[in-house]
């Protein structure tokens, strides 16, 4: 390995990116500390579950799967962003993807780890985990999951690591005089990269090969996850389109996750030069396209059985359309799919800023009205039991048209704000998408289980409803915290925006070589 004589020189924007690796103020430590605390609390909750059994959750014989499996499907869904950004966008020649591919692959890596842990958390006998290997039945979708997710995790790790090799070489050279552990890490991982044409050729070959095979692997991953449900006879799960439905939902929520990550890193590490408004606009287009596809599948998935209302499906369809899950269902569809699409498209209309000329159609009055409504409904529902006993039905006091009117008012009032701040719009949309995605997974798992073929009878009290306990919520929060910890830790170890891939133009590469930044191998 050749030794560097001079410290390589980076441009100003690259210096800023590299500084983010080592710089960390009180805010960073507070964030990491907080996440660590939440993660540890999740571990405490899991220890409780190991000690007392799954009875500490709200799961019982009827709702046998709940928050854990919703987490599993959610995390595995988010993990599809890696294949999307690195592979699909690469194969379609979208050069603008370069600054964000590593973020996306890191999301994939972290979410596959957390998602893969969820079925373990859900198992009744984790001590018998090796039975899956010893006695595994290949006809079971759980085995397909195991094979598919491990294959995808390996592929994604390669896809995360291999494009990072030139950057690791840069870091190896930069931190030659730096802290020993960083130096050793980068030296080890950079595989003796000297940027020779032969090495570069092999790297490109690896990227081309991986880009092609990772796409069918990624598609297969969420397809087999959907077949955990799709291979049962239960109404609501016994659907032929579950495979593409879940894959489209996964791509949708993954793309949204990357938008959130882009905004977070852009703000935290001041990467405005790398991650521009154009990136958000293009990711927005991608999100719109994926959202339309996902909305189409969702619509088909519910309209088709609802048109017929066959006996088996009547129970769960009524439950989500107008029954106990109605509010959650409509909230999820409207704010998880429709509203983000509106937020990504409508603010672009040119005359939107003129809305502010309409009296009261401004943020503050709308927020005040919304706050009044919130307070009023909280107070009324708290006072409701005693007032209902006195013969007054409080639901009549708040007309049903109030809430939709408020929603439209808020939306129109904030449209000009989003027009002026498209990045904010994209981030709000992406957050709504992911919240909606998690709720959607919950709505796929639970209502079907509460509407089986034979009626629920002679069950102990509380077995016919699902009330997740603190253990389940804590483990969920812990998994999310773990995901963020892995992600932030990654961004502290490795440059979150690829340096070598984002060099401005090929000419600058010659200049970079002459400046001694990229070594010429004397082969």
């Amino acid at each position, binding site marked *: *390995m*050749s030794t560097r004589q001079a410290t390589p020189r980076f441009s100003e924007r690259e210096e800023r990116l590299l500084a983010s690796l080592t710089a960390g103020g009180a805010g960073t430590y507070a964030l990491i500390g907080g996440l660590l605390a939440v993660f540890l609390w999740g571990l405490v909750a899991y220890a409780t579950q190991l000690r007392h059994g799954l009875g500490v959750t709200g799961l019982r014989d009827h709702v046998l799967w709940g928050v854990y499996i919703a987490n599993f499907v959610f995390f595995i869904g988010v993990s599809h962003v890696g294949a999307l950004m690195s592979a699909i966008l690469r194969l379609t020649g979208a050069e603008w993807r370069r600054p964000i591919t590593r973020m996306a692959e890191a999301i994939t890596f972290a979410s596959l780890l957390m998602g893969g842990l969820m079925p373990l958390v859900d198992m009744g006998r984790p001590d018998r985990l090796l039975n899956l290997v010893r006695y595994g*039945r*290949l*006809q079971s979708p759980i085995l397909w999951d195991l*094979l598919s997710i491990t*294959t995808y995790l*390996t*592929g994604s790790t*390669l896809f995360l690591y*291999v494009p990072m*090799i030139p950057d690791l070489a840069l870091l190896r050279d930069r931190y030659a005089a730096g802290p020993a552990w960083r130096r050793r890490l980068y030296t080890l991982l950079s*595989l*003796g*990269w*000297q940027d*020779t044409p*032969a*090495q570069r050729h*092999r*790297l490109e*070959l*690896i990227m081309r*090969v*991986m880009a092609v*095979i990772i796409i069918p*692997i990624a598609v297969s991953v969420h397809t087999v996850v959907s077949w955990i449900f799709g291979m049962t006879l239960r109404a609501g799960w016994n659907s032929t389109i579950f495979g593409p439905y879940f894959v489209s939902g996964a791509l949708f929520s993954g793309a949204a996750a990357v938008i959130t990550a882009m905004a977070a890193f852009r703000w935290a590490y001041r990467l405005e030069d790398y991650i521009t408004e154009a990136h958000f606009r293009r990711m927005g287009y991608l999100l719109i396209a994926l959202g339309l596809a996902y909305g189409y599948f969702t619509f088909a998935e519910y309209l088709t059985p609802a048109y017929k209302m066959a006996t088996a499906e009547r129970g769960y369809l009524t439950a989500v359309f107008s029954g106990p899950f109605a509010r959650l269902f409509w909230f999820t569809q409207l704010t998880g799919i429709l509203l983000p699409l509106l937020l990504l498209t409508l603010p672009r209309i040119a005359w939107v800023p003129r809305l502010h000329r309409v009296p009261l159609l401004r943020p503050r009055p709308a927020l005040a009205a919304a706050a009044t409504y919130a307070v009023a409904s909280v107070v009324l529902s708290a006072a409701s039991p005693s007032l209902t006993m006195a013969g007054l039905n409080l639901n009549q006091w708040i007309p049903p048209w109030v809430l939709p009117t408020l929603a439209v008012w808020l939306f129109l009032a904030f449209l000009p704000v989003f027009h002026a701040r498209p990045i904010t719009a994209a981030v709000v949309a992406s957050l709504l998408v992911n919240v909606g995605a998690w709720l959607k997974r919950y709505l796929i798992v639970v209502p079907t289980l509460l509407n089986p073929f034979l009626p629920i009878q002679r069950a102990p009290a509380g077995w016919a409803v699902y009330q997740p306990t603190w253990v389940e919520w804590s483990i969920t929060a812990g998994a999310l915290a773990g995901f963020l910890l892995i992600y932030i830790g990654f961004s502290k170890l490795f440059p979150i925006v690829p340096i070598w891939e984002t060099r401005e133009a090929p000419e600058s590469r010659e200049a970079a070589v002459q400046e001694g930044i990229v070594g010429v*191998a*004397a*082969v």
Partner: protein
Amino acid sequence: MLRQSRSGRASTGLGRFCLGALGVLLFVLPAWAGEPARVTLRLEAGPDGAQWITARVTDAEGAPVPEASVVFKLRTAFGWLTLEERTTDASGQARTRLPAGTRATEIRAESGDVEGVGATLSVGAPAPESPRVRPGRDVLRALSPQPAFISPRPAPELVALLALVLGGIWATYGYVAWLLWQIRSSGSRS
């Protein structure tokens, strides 16, 4: 049947008594003689390969009993299944045919009204075997419409398919690892 003698007029009271007693005996004797007291069973194969059970009902004297009802029963797992009810013919025999494919262990024939007289024929017990622990596709084919999905081990076709697909993917990973190794070794050479 005794005939009254034509030769002369009825004799004195003693003769009448004898006649009367004889008459009574004539009425009683058939019933008394015909009470089923024993049943013997015989199992034989018929000309068409079917199994026939023949029950012979005899009275206490060993004389065959005609017009006696015989109920044939078959021993099943948890009880006696009534096969048929037949009436003996003149020679005191009743036959019934065993259903084809019966793996009978015991056959019983009962005769008589109140307290049946019966006989049991043991036609052999199958060796007691436990069912296999996890039978495979070959056994399940007789039971299930989808034996390959029910069996503990997958069909070779599925294994081959998965091996092909996954093998191809992991072979590609191996190829990538080999390329990485080449990158490393070419770097260390410089």
